[in-house]
């Protein structure tokens, strides 16, 4: 790779904006800032939201710059996929952050998870990727679109699940003192999980339609399909466990995080561990 790719400065700027959002969110939950006028007026939350949105705007420019450079959208390489996910996760989490004030302190868990993606993308080369024939299908848009909403809802659930787990410690109770009791957090978290199940189901359906026309079969138990189905069944098991048993909040949080880990592996691990048809290898 010679020189700097057109998208890189915008990508770094976007990541910097997410970093600022993370730092302000952390400062907001710190016991030292409890009497700060910015915290008491909840002005710091506006700052967090503003930095996340700034990051989304900068990442939008990065994606457009790359699209213009290589001639296709962020569908193929891990670099593109991570950049695109950072954009959609930021956008949807910003919406939830704005609409659901109760979950705002959980940004100190959500944003560092996004930073795992941010750190990862910085280690990758922004090489030009080949756009395979199977990616011309319009169902790709539906599959990817609902998949992005699914992962973002899971991520927001992870934030709330993490809060319930951390609240088993004294420090966690201090950090998340501004949040409602665990029962409300748990209820909200599982509402997000319910929505995630709807979007996960839609993702599988749209993916099956795409697979039918792209690879000549709607289901073949390939690596990504198996992994995606296991994620769906884990989520369904989680919902049924919560319906069947009276579980402790930290167990509830652990189940949500477990489902997210499965989904995360499906998105960012499985497609790159095997020569899957999803990479256009046919």
């Amino acid at each position, binding site marked *: 790779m010679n020189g700097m790719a057109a998208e890189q400065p915008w990508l770094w700027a976007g990541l910097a904006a997410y970093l600022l959002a993370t730092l302000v969110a952390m400062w907001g939950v710190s016991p030292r800032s409890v009497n700060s006028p910015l915290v008491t007026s909840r002005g710091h939350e506006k700052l967090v939201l503003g930095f996340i949105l700034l990051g989304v705007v900068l990442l939008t420019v990065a994606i457009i710059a790359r699209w213009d450079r290589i001639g296709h959208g962020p569908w193929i390489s891990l670099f593109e996929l991570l950049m695109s996910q950072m954009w959609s996760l930021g956008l949807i989490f910003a919406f939830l952050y704005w*609409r*659901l*004030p*109760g*979950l705002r302190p959980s940004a100190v868990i959500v944003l560092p998870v996004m930073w795992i993606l941010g750190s990862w993308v910085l280690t990758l080369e922004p090489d030009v990727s*080949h*756009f*395979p*024939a*199977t990616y*011309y*299908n319009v169902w790709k848009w539906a599959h990817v679109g609902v998949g992005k909403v699914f992962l973002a809802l899971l991520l927001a659930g992870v934030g709330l699940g993490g809060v319930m787990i951390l609240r088993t410690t004294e420090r966690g109770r201090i950090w998340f003192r501004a*949040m*409602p*009791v*665990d*029962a*409300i957090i*748990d*209820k*909200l978290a*599982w*509402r997000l*999980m*319910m*929505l995630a*199940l*709807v979007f996960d*189901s*839609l993702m599988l*359906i749209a993916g*099956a*339609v795409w697979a*039918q*026309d*792209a*690879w*000549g*079969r*709607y289901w*073949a*138990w*390939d*690596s990504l399909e*198996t992994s995606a*189905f*296991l994620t769906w*069944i*884990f989520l*369904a*098991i989680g*919902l*049924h*466990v*919560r*319906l*069947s048993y009276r579980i402790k909040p930290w167990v509830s949080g652990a189940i949500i995080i477990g489902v997210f880990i499965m989904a995360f592996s499906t998105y960012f691990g499985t497609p790159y561990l095997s020569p899957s048809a999803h990479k256009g290898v*046919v």
Partner: protein
Amino acid sequence: MLSGLRLLASLKFTLLGMVLLGLGAAASYGNPVDVSVWVLIVPLALLALNLSAAIITNPRINRQPGLLIFHVCLLATVLLAGVGRLTHLDAHLELAQNDSFHKDALMEVNKGPWHIGNLDAVSFIQGPYTVDYAAGLQRGLTHSTVYLPGPDGGVVTRDVGDDRPLVLERYRFYTTHNKGFAPILTWLPIQGAPITGHINMPSYPLFEYKQDNQWTPPGSEETIKFWLQLQTGMTLEQPWVLDGRNSTGTLVVTIGDRREELQVGEEVQLEQGRLRYEALTTWMGYRVFYDPTIQWLFWVTIIGVLGLTHFFWIKLNLKPWMDEVDAAPLANGDEGRA
């Protein structure tokens, strides 16, 4: 009877079925030949039984329309997927340009015991094709032209690709990476009628380095070896379009120690007759797929998701989403249930 159904409808039984299905799915990864399909069928059958019993007996399901629709659709999905496997057909096909489709040409046929499709009614003729390649020989779109019998004896032209199937009698024909060249030859025996046919060479450009095949003329014990030297304009560094109409090939014919190079129109004299190199044509490989349930599956799953959405929509609207007002601490207990 009812108590038995209630036992069968237990949510704990559902969890067991789901865990078994998860294990079955993990074991089915990559369709290994040594893993029985029963690892999926048993948990799916258990879940179908559990689901049927739950739909009948569980008021939490059958008194909530959205949840009822979702679970009925889930059951229908399982049943349709099962019927689909019993009636499906998967196969491959190689068709040279100007050849008509015939069901005997299907290869690697894999079909369910209840398959009753109407392959005899499928009729089309293979035309020319092009395949786009990006730099680095990365395959792009395939445009394969096929001709179908049209109304009033006319001909209808269709463009088929990897992602644009030709659908006839519910059979779906998709182009594949498997395609190549085929010299058309005429065998003129000393005695008997001439025979014209083609020899399919290995897939191109995948096996560009070994474009060879062999053939034994009828009534002869001598095997003729063929090697095709192609000029297709293939480039590695630049984008390229594979088009049989812009390609030429020299046919190297080897019989024992004798070696002859033939251009189109030339022939070689052999002991039992003459072999003429008539023309160079192409062949296209297709994947053939048949499953009469796929449209039903699609709509049933969509209706199921809509049912689930309806159920959750009501759930989500029972109380306002957490905001400034209900951020105040609430008592623990069932209130916390989603």
